[in-house]
């Protein structure tokens, strides 16, 4: 960009015919060079890449500025160094402001830096660090401000480019994992001049609309410059101001942006954001079908119990009540049992899920499950005939009691018609 061309302007004395008119001392010459140089280049900007950077314990910094064609020695004295925004490093491209001077002791000219600015990527990185620090101090990254992401968002807002790969990636994941989600896109440019404004507008629009339960902002990978909109302070503040939780999904795994730090959740990529925001369909199917089985099982269990209660009512209690009450109860229970059975079989037929196991449970009201609930079977000995009513036994008869997990032998002490 800027080449240092040096034109000799001091007097030249040539030895003519062996006669020497003036002999300079080294010091004189060097001083003259120094004076002329300092006058010719009093305050200039130089662009170059830093190399051989050395920070001396004295606080002074020594380095070279170089480009493809040349090198220039440079110094930053302690007094200037302490006001630098950043610590330079080898390879960093900079704009250096200062003046040219000569270090007489070594007869070297060098550039005395008074101000240093990173250029290109370096400048962006510096801006990134400064903003990150500022927002961190303000508390924009604090955990306590992070809003939880809803477990099953019904409406998902997306702020990204309508033509980008990020959107397509997310749509694919949403389709695979959680079709019930409704997706709303606020089209925004994600790089270039308009990106910052449009991303901010998108965040505000979803907050104003109020129906989305979570917002994803993002884009695919790119150079630091391409992702820059997500490092803008306005975007950070819009994320912070959002009442709706915001997920940032910018670039690849390794790309971190300011948006990532402020967002309620940072996803390494847009696809990952989609995965993190919605539940997994297969998992959900498992949850639904296990709830379904649990409900059917519990209900069939209750039906069984009602049936045994019906047996008890008919067998004993009713004998002491008006006949008509018995009939009514019987009918009511019968009716319920019939409706229950009908409801069950109706659902069973229609069910796509594995209700087979439930059906099996219902159909095989295994005596064992009844026994485990506290009932037992009484059989006469020695013929092992099941005793269904008190009249079938009399005092001193030997009987066998069958429990769910064993048997007992007993002797009848007496009988009476009283029931439960």
């Amino acid at each position, binding site marked *: 960009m800027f080449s240092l061309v040096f034109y000799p302007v001091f007097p030249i004395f040539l030895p003519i015919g062996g006669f020497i008119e003036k002999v300079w001392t080294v010091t004189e010459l060097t001083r003259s060079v120094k004076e002329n140089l300092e006058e010719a280049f009093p305050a200039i900007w130089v662009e170059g890449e830093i190399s051989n950077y050395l920070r001396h314990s004295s606080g002074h910094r020594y380095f070279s500025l170089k480009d493809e064609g040349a090198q220039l020695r440079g110094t930053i004295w302690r007094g200037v160094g302490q006001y630098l925004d950043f610590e330079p490093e080898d390879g960093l491209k900079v704009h250096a402001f200062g003046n040219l001077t000569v270090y007489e002791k070594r007869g070297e000219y060098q550039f005395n830096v008074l101000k240093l600015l990173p250029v290109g990527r370096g400048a962006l990185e510096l801006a990134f660090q400064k903003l990150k620090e500022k927002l961190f101090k303000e508390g924009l990254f604090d955990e306590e401000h992070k809003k939880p992401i809803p477990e099953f968002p019904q409406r998902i807002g997306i702020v990204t480019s309508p033509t980008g790969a990020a959107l397509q990636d997310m749509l694919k994941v949403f*389709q695979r994992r959680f079709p019930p989600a409704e997706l709303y896109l606020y089209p925004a440019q994600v790089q270039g001049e308009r990106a910052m404004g449009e991303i901010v507008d998108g965040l505000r629009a979803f907050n104003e609309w109020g129906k989305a339960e979570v917002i994803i902002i993002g884009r695919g990978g790119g150079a630091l410059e391409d992702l820059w909109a997500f490092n803008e302070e306005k975007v950070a503040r819009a994320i912070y101001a959002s009442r709706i939780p915001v997920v940032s999904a910018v670039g690849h795994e390794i790309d971190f942006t300011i948006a990532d730090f402020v967002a309620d959740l940072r996803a390494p990529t847009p696809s990952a954001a989609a995965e993190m925001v919605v539940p997994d369909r297969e998992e959900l199917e498992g949850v639904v079908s296990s*709830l379904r089985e649990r409900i059917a099982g519990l*209900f069939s269990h*209750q039906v069984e119990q009602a049936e045994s209660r019906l047996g008890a009512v008919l067998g004993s209690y009713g004998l002491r009540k008006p006949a008509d009450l018995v009939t009514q109860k019987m009918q009511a229970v019968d009716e319920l049992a019939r409706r229950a059975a009908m409801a069950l079989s109706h659902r069973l037929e229609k069910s796509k899920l594995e209700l087979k196991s439930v059906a099996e449970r219902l159909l095989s009201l295994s005596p064992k499950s009844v026994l485990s609930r506290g009932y037992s079977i009484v059989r006469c000995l020695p013929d092992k005939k099941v005793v269904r009513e008190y009249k079938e036994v009399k005092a001193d008869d030997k009987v066998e009691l069958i429990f769910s997990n064993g048997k007992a032998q007993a002797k009848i002490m007496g009988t009476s018609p009283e029931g439960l």
Partner: protein
Amino acid sequence: MKRQKAEAAAFKEPKSFESALKRLEEIAVKLESGETELEESLTIFQEGMQLSGWCQKKLDEAQKKLKILVRSKTGELEVKEE
């Protein structure tokens, strides 16, 4: 038979998948408590079967089309089909 039909028709579409799952959970807990009368159990059992059927149907659905949220010239927000 008539009454059962009326009950089936009374099935209210859940607000969201989440609320459907929550209600299923509630039904299971209620039945587990053993405190519901058979009549009530039947009703919530039927509700549970309908809800879980609805959930499955939702999961099998094709993805809804992407909708676009845009701001009109007058500053109003509108939702457009893609």
